[in-house]
């Protein structure tokens, strides 16, 4: 595709529900990142994949958050038993090679998650 796409764009969940957020990176991009952006704040790092390997998950806020990229392309961020504090925009980004040698990250439009 022409850019990074994410689906759904908006998701409303009841507290306690599980949600799955999808990211389609630019074709051929090796690196994939997930960020969480609370309202009025800067994005915060969640996790990083190089191909299918999850090399850094230090930003995941709890064990309710799980991310995968099984074939090294599409990635899914799953949140189990959602809580109100999970309400945020979840951004996905990809880059062609491995930072810092190609350090431009291309961002998707994000998924806005609202937990009621």
């Amino acid at each position, binding site marked *: 595709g022409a850019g990074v796409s994410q689906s759904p764009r908006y998701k409303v969940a009841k507290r306690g529900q599980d949600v799955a957020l999808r990211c389609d990176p630019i074709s051929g991009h090796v*690196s994939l990142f997930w960020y969480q952006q609370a309202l009025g704040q800067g994005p915060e*790092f969640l996790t990083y994949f190089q191909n299918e390997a999850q090399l850094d998950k230090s930003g995941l806020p709890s064990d309710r958050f799980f991310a995968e990229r099984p074939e090294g392309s599409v990635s899914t961020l799953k949140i189990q038993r959602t809580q109100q504090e999970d309400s945020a*925009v979840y951004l996905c980004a990809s880059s062609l090679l491995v930072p*810092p040698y190609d350090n431009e990250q291309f961002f998707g439009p994000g998924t*806005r998650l609202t937990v009621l």
Partner: protein
Amino acid sequence: AQTVTQSQPEMSVQEAETVTLSCTYDTSESDYYLFWYKQPPSRQMILVIRQEAYKQQNATENRFSVNFQKAAKSFSLKISDSQLGDAAMYFCAQLFMEYGNKLVFGAGTILRVKS
């Protein structure tokens, strides 16, 4: 500590005028990369300009330029000849290679452009 600080929550500029957005950072890395991203209401984060720390020369992209002061750990963005389309949230960010190749962002500065 991995911190990026933007001390200006909001800035305004008249169309065609120049505005400077401030950013400071804290790092122990000897080589690193700094970025300015623009986020309009559509939420699509767009790269505006990047600076490699080992390069002495300040980066420039058309109307956008940076003032990179490595010793002071300062990285400001200057927008010349401001246009209505420049109105957005601007984020300063640093790439932390030592900590898993992640971007660490500041809190952002809302830029308003007056016609």
